């Protein structure tokens, strides 16, 4: 017993945990910034139509997104109100699709490449003209697995 008594008498200083909250806060801010950014970069209005026969896209790393819709009010002055294609975070022409597909393809391990899916997130009010052009370009680029993104229909 006396041994413990002695130690307590000396009283070593504790490790300060005061900086722990700061570290966690840093992590928190990191996540807040990263996750919010991705969504805010949409430059077109996309309100996908409703459907019933839906399949869930499993692997996010194997999916690339093509957005088609009217530019948001902020961008309408520059780009007008006609439906446009957005790849990544900027407006692109239909002929830029093969490069976009290729850029995504090289990031995927070779064995998983047949599973790459292009998700078309298209506004319901867009007419089929631009979508046909996009589809033709995708077929030419050899990207045949596509997904028409849709919302589940409320019963």
């Amino acid at each position, binding site marked *: 017993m006396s041994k413990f008594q002695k130690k307590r008498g000396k009283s070593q200083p504790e490790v300060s945990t005061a900086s722990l909250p700061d570290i966690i806060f840093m992590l928190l801010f990191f996540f807040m910034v990263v*996750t919010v950014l991705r969504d805010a970069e949409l430059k077109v209005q996309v309100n996908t*139509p409703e459907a019933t026969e839906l399949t869930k*896209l499993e692997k996010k790393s194997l999916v690339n997104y093509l957005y088609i819709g009217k530019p948001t009010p902020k961008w309408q002055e520059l780009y007008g109100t006609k439906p446009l294609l957005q790849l990544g975070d900027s407006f692109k022409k239909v002929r830029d699709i093969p490069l976009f597909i290729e850029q995504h393809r090289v990031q995927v391990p070779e064995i998983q490449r047949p599973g790459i899916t292009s998700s*078309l997130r298209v506004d319901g*009010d867009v007419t*089929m003209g631009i979508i046909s052009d996009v589809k*033709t370009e995708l*077929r030419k680029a050899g990207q045949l*697995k596509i997904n028409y*993104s849709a919302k589940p229909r409320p019963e």
Partner: protein
Amino acid sequence: MKNEINAGSMADIAFLLLIFFLVTTTILEDKGILVRLPPWSEEEPDIAKLKERNVYSILVNAQNQLLVRGEPKDIKSLREDTKMFIANPQRREDLSEAPNKAIVSLKNDRGTKYETYLEVYNEVQAAYNELRDEEARRKHNKPYTNLTREQRAAIRAKFPLILSEAEPTSFGEES
């Protein structure tokens, strides 16, 4: 004698916030209709060679109206009509010979709304899904989704979704 406020619980509060953000910001879940496009070829597929009774042609014009096998039709009856065509339970002369010979041909205008196009696509897909499900229940007494891979493949081979999309016409106005 130091009189500090205990900051030990600050970390827990921050952790709680962090976990809250991790849980709520699921980077939008994506669902949709999965489609396999045909490989690119310069010439159009020729559906004129096929027997007329095996082709279920759906035309959608720029006013989003449907013309199914030459008759105007409402989208609400499309699913039942498609099922009838594919399965042909009464062995009618004007409907498909067998489910695996049925071909759905879809043609739209450049001015057709995407919403309508997807709805038509959804109805055709739904017709096949329902037929496959009915077959699964009849044969195995189980819903289609509960079957093994081989059983599903066998049923899919019996009801293959063959959809041919023609190059769209361009009569309507594009927005």
